[in-house]
Every structure is written in C-alpha cells, then in structure tokens.
C-alpha cells in the first residue's frame, strides 16, 4: 500500500502548540500554519486512522506537555478537528480511516469577544 500524504493545518491559536522550529521552517512565526507530512498507510497492521495521526502529531510536532495534546484517547479540550472541511465527528472521529491527500485541520475555539 502507498503512503498517505496529508496536509495538516493549525489555526485560530492551535498553531501555538507546534514546535517553534517547525513554525520557523514553515515561514510563519505568526499566523496560520500549514504542513505536509507523510504517514504509512497502515499502522500496526491496520489501516491508519485519525487516532494514529494524533499520536504522530503529539510525538513529532507538539512543543511541550505533549501528553496534554492527546493521551488515553482524549484530545486536548477546546481543539476542533476538521477533516476535509467537516467536523471530524461528521466523519468517524478518531476512527476515521485516513485517505491519501486528506486535509486535517486543528483549530482552537475562541472565547474572547
């Protein structure tokens, strides 16, 4: 099976969770962050799902307190996951089977006004 090429976006404040050097590489020290990453099509012998991507992001992209981002099946509160323009719960949430060229976005809910 082929690898999965994924576009990852972080915005509305979610970009602040990402390591400074990765943000610097992307040329956006301030502002929305867009990255491309490749994941294997299978993880532990099963098709790669959204949950596997969250673990990949936690282990490779998150700046500090990685376990706060995703641990024990729990995503950090206040983060919305959007897969190809839809709330991931419209798809299968953490169980969503990732496809090549998917776009997965992470946005922070905003409280100010």
């Amino acid at each position, binding site marked *: 099976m082929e690898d999965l090429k994924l576009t990852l976006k972080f*915005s*509305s*404040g979610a970009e602040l969770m990402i390591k400074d050097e990765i943000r610097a590489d992307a040329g956006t020290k301030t*502002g*929305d962050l867009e990255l491309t990453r490749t994941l294997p099509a299978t993880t532990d012998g099963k098709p790669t799902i959204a949950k596997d991507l969250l673990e990949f992001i936690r282990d490779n992209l998150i700046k500090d307190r990685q376990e*706060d981002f995703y641990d024990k099946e729990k995503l*950090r*509160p*206040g983060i*919305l996951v*959007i897969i190809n*323009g*839809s*709330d991931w*719960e*419209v798809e299968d949430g953490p169980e969503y089977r990732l496809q090549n060229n998917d776009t997965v976005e992470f*946005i*922070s*809910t*905003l*409280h*100010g*006004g």
Partner: protein
Amino acid sequence: RHATGNKLSNEAIGRYSRQLLIPEIGMQGQLKLRNSSVLVVGSGGLGSPCALYLASMGIGRLGLVDHDVVDQSNLHRQVLHTEASCGVSKVVSAATALTRLSSMCDVRAHDVLLDSTNAKEIMRGYDVVVDATDNAATRYLVNDACVMLGIPLVSGSAVRLDGQLTVYNYNGGPCYRCLFPTPPAPDATANCSETGVLGVVPGVIGCLQAMEVVKIVTERKREEEPSLLLFSYRSQPHFRKIKLRMRKPTCAVCGDSPTVTGLVDYVAFCGAGPSDN
C-alpha cells in the same frame, strides 16, 4: 411605540421601508422582527455591532446583560460606547446609544454579572440569545441555560485576528457542550485583554450574529445544516464554512439522558471566571 400584533404603524412602515421592499423580508418578516425579543449577553466588541443592527433592523425587544463599565481600552472595538461613557456601566451606555438610534426598540438593560443564580430568570422568555461574552465560564453557563430553556443560541467569538460564529441548540444541531464537552485549561483560553484583538474583527462577527438572528426569527435558518463559520484577517479566503455534527445523544446537557440538569458552578468547572479576564 413598542407595539406588537399583526400591523406595523405608519411610522414603522416609513422607517423600515427599505426592508419591506425585499421579498425575503417584506411585511411578514418585518412583523416577525418587531414581535421578537433577543437577549444579547455582553455589551463589548461583539455586542456593540450586534445590538446596533438588531435595534436598527427592527427587533422589538432587546435585552442587554453586562456587569462591566466602559474603559478607554475598549473603545477600539466597542463602538457603541463613547469617551464620555468611560467609567459608566456598559449596558447603560449601550441602552442610551441604542435608544438614540431607535426609540422603537424596547431596550432592557441588566447591569449584572450573569451567573448560575440569575441566568435562567434573566434569559427566560427571549426568543433568541446572542452569546457576545468573552470567557469560557460564561459561554458554558449561557449554553446550558439555553438548552434548559429551549432557546436558540447565536454564538460569536473574536480573538487577535480570528473570529468564529455558530448557532447552537437549534433545529437538531449541536449545543456548545456537544462540541466542547470538557472546558479548556484556564491558561489555554486566550482572551482579548491578554492577547489583543483588532477592532474590526468582532465588528464583522457581531454583524454576522445579527444576521443569524434575522435568519432564525424569519425562519430562513430552518433550511440550513449546522455549521461553523471561521473568519480570519490572516487567511485567504477570509471566510470558511465548516460542516458540524448534529446534536450528540451522549451530550451531558442536551443529550438523551442529560447528567447536567441544572446550572452549576461554571467558574469552578472552567477553573477561571469572567473576572479573571
């Protein structure tokens, strides 16, 4: 002048003539606006433009809730207020400005901190509630009360250069807790005083909140699926619409077997309250 019923006064016909000309609004729509009551929680960056346009377009009764006073550092975004109203209660300042614009709008000012002891009493009876607040604790409070009272909630937010807009608890769609069952860590909730906001960002979102209210009141909103509008000064395009989940049967407040059946202590729940902003 605060008439109800199924007829507009001649004065109202003159005043709203440009809206009466639009087929999608017309006399029926204008009467629906006139016979509606809307509560805007927060008279700040979002509440200013939202309340202005709700009053100008002809909403019959407009409630305002805020416990804060106007500060000089508010005026870059809270355009309902004035330099002269610095130090004055925001709802008093706002009510004065709104009444100057339209004496046809019955404005009711609640100069209190909305909390679990008074929220239902204040909110009960309104047709639509607008969340124009600035902290997570009040957002959960307003959401839960709207679910318990069966009132649709037009929720907007704005921080830095970004804004978000959703209608909750409406037409089978989610409530705020369906999307965010667990409150964020207190240190993760950026607000406008700490991280700043460009004045016009809540301006755009507040106007769009007023538009969502019109869509709900005129029943046009019935045709739409639940969605979240994302806005950013930084992104191209500036606006994006995200499709949202429907109501979650497992939601603690709007689900099939709710575990939250009364208002709780939201400051404790969120680890931070409105006055920590």
